[in-house]
């Protein structure tokens, strides 16, 4: 298993390098100008100077190698300096955002908390809710519980978050006034009342995302359980005189989890990708909002860095899913 993991990790290095090149070239070929959002009152000569100051005058391969150096050498050094108080990265050029002229990684670190809180929490809730719903729905197929679960997950599936989000705002912020419609990223949880405020401001975005994620996972869970419930080994288990509890939760569930684990594991990188739409609707201003504003502003270094981080996470969680298979099903071994 360890051997396999190491081999997979090594293979992912050329994959990721290739991905970074593709992202870079795509961004470079894409139309768009970081100076486009500047008012027309700023004359073109000045804009040209500003472009030069951003380093856009350099040829493509130089810019790519620069970015690689900054991402793989300078930024890790900065991290080490930050943790151990050393001075490796002193005076070295970090990856700088075109919009704010500040280091991209600093902004990522700034945005991480709200994204993890809102998107991450909703993902955990969604999983915790969806798995039991899926199990019960499959075990009591076509019961009223199953029908209700199907109905709710269809709603979660089919109503886009920009609609459900605004609907919640209109009901709970505008009419009832229970929750704030705008997320305050400066709020620090220090006591009971600030905790309550944090819960209030997270309630709506977390609910919207939980509904959306839970809908997907519960459907997968249900389908996978149904596949397994009719298998021969289930009948054997029952014939051996095992209780229904053991049959369903030990035998069937474990086998049914294999495809669901993939879905759940591959969904984790999306947490870091943020929820672009939901973050916009509630002004959570996490990584998703950061990515979309960077795209609008043609802020290539930021888009490049973020998308590459997502790529790394996706490759990583693919590997984690594969390893989990081996743990869930001892027949699947890669050595």
């Amino acid at each position, binding site marked *: 298993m360890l051997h396999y993991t190491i081999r997979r990790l090594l293979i992912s290095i050329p994959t990721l390098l290739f991905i970074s090149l593709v992202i870079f070239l795509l961004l470079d070929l894409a139309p768009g100008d970081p*100076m486009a959002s500047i008012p027309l*009152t700023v004359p073109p000569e*000045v804009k040209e100077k500003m472009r030069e100051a*951003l380093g856009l005058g350099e040829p493509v391969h130089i810019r790519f190698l620069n970015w690689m150096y900054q991402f793989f050498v300078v930024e890790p050094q900065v991290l080490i300096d930050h943790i151990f108080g050393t001075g490796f990265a002193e005076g070295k050029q970090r990856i700088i955002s075109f919009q704010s*002229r500040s280091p991209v990684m600093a902004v990522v670190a700034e945005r991480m908390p709200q994204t993890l809180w809102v998107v991450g929490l909703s993902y955990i809730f969604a999983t915790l809710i969806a798995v039991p719903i899926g199990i019960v729905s499959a075990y009591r197929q076509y019961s009223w519980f199953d029908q209700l679960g199907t109905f709710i997950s269809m709603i979660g599936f089919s109503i886009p978050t920009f609609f459900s989000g605004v609907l919640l705002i209109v009901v709970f912020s505008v009419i009832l006034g229970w929750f704030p419609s705008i997320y305050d*990223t400066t709020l620090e949880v220090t006591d009971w009342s600030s905790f309550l405020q944090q819960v209030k401001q997270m309630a709506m975005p977390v609910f919207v995302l939980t509904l959306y994620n839970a809908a997907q996972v519960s459907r997968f869970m249900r389908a996978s359980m149904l596949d397994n419930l009719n298998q021969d080994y289930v009948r054997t288990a029952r014939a051996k005189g095992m209780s229904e509890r053991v049959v369903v939760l030990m035998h069937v569930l474990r086998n049914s989890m294999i495809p669901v684990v993939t879905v759940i594991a591959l969904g984790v990188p999306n947490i870091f990708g943020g929820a672009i739409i939901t973050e916009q609707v509630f002004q959570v201003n996490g990584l998703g909002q950061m990515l979309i504003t960077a795209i609008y502003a043609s802020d290539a270094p930021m888009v490049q860095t973020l998308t590459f981080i997502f790529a790394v996470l996706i490759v990583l969680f693919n590997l984690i899913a594969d390893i989990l298979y081996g743990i869930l099903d001892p027949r699947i071994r890669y050595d």
Partner: protein
Amino acid sequence: MNIKTALKGTVWGAVAGLALAPAAFAERGADGHVNIIYWQAPSTMNPYLSGGTKELEVGSLVLEPLARYDETGAMVPFLAESVPTVENGGVSADLTTVTWKLKEGLKWSDGSDLTSEDVKFTWEYCTSEGGGCAQSEKYNDVVSVETPDDLTVIVTFGVPKPFPYGPFVGAQAPIIQKAQFANCTGEAMASCTEQNFAPIGTGPFVVDEFKTNDVVSMSANPNYRDPMKPAFATATVKGGGDAAAAGRSVLETGEFDYAWNLQLAPDVLADMEAKGKGHLEVSFGTLVERIMVNFTDPNPALGDERATAAHPHPFLSDINVRKALSMAIDRELLVEIGYGAAGTVTCNVLPAPAIYASTANDGCMTQDIEGAKALLDEAGWVPGADGIREKDGVKLSLLYQTSTNAVRQDFQAIIKQWWNEIGVEVELRNIDSSVFFGGDAGSPDTFQKFYADLEMYANNFDGTDPEAYMANWECKQAPRPETQWQGNNMPRYCSEEYDALVAEMAKTGELNKRAELAKAMNDMLMQDYAIIPLVYRGRVSAASNTLGGVVMNSWDSELWNAADWYREK
């Protein structure tokens, strides 16, 4: 002085005191917290790095220039004692030097003194090589800035400047602290993140925490020059989301006190305002939504000479066609569907300030479809078998482009309908604004390249002086391959007479004469139908009913008088 007059004086003093009650009784920081929302969040607090409106305006809470424009477009001294003019001797008779006197006792928010050295440094900072300062145009032609003493700044220009208020005036060119930015000139400009995010200023607020593209937390400047102001102890400028969410947070939920730039459909705004929690603030600067007419042939078959002066446009070079296109437009309807209270009809490309606004072209205010048809008939453009007018084998079939934006697409659709009515075939196109307004000479879709017959967008100018703006339509400003497709003369309008007026304005100092010249230039463009003006657009923002002192301003930062804001009790 007898007792009676002395008493009178006291009484009058008391009355005056009462009139100023909200300001006089309030103490610095007495009104708690103010929440401002800029749905396009500021990326930096340093306007010299960004040039974007959102950064200029939020930056203006901290950084101040020597003088600002007030809501009428008049200049008011901020850090300066007074605004120098030729009359008060502040501007030399040959219009090449300006002497600014700073107010006495001004302090930066860190407690140190503001001196003329800081002003001089600001000029050096923005003009340093390799920095890419976004406002360097404001310092054009400045050859030296001298500081004979701590309070005097003498700016010398290389050429006579009839309007010498570019440097250090308005939200675009505030004064930064030398001590803080001394190591941030040239290429180091961008790497000074700490300074750029939290500049030390003289304005009413100080940055406590800056999260780029997200939120700025501020508190009252303890060293602000008026000990009573600002009334708010803390301020937050939040960003993110969209205009609708921002409007909702002020007008419907009341979570925020001020929302910037609410370009929304008029009925949506009216519904929000009807909730009674806040009101809209509208003010007009110089922004005009217009259609530019291409005088050159954008036919792709022409290769490198496409859309250059080498080939005049096959039918738009006929003034009757241009005029008919303008006549067929119902500008009032456009205002109604697109902007509501935030727009009015205009027939000028230079709509303001009042002394520059011409009334010679007001005929465009009413739509005249029949007149347009008759004009085209007369000029020999007659409908063909398919109903499209033609003459000598040339069909009136045109491509009309603009940037992607809901209001602009509505305008395109409705204008297309009117033009179809007069027998003109119209193809519509919209281009993502980051491409359309991006200056990429390699892209065929930029507004400078103008590979279309007509294009629509909005433009304005900073401050109140239209000299540079009107010079946009000089022959030499036409974008063409030799200029790497840069330049502001999109129609490629070229008239010796016009160029002569531009040259004359550059050496005329007297205000009324300048106004006459600017009007003459505007009228020339309008009567040649090189530009078809549509809507004079204002800025719309929303303020909560509990927020007092807001004076909406289109000539400077909207937040220009945030020091005077207070909480209505």
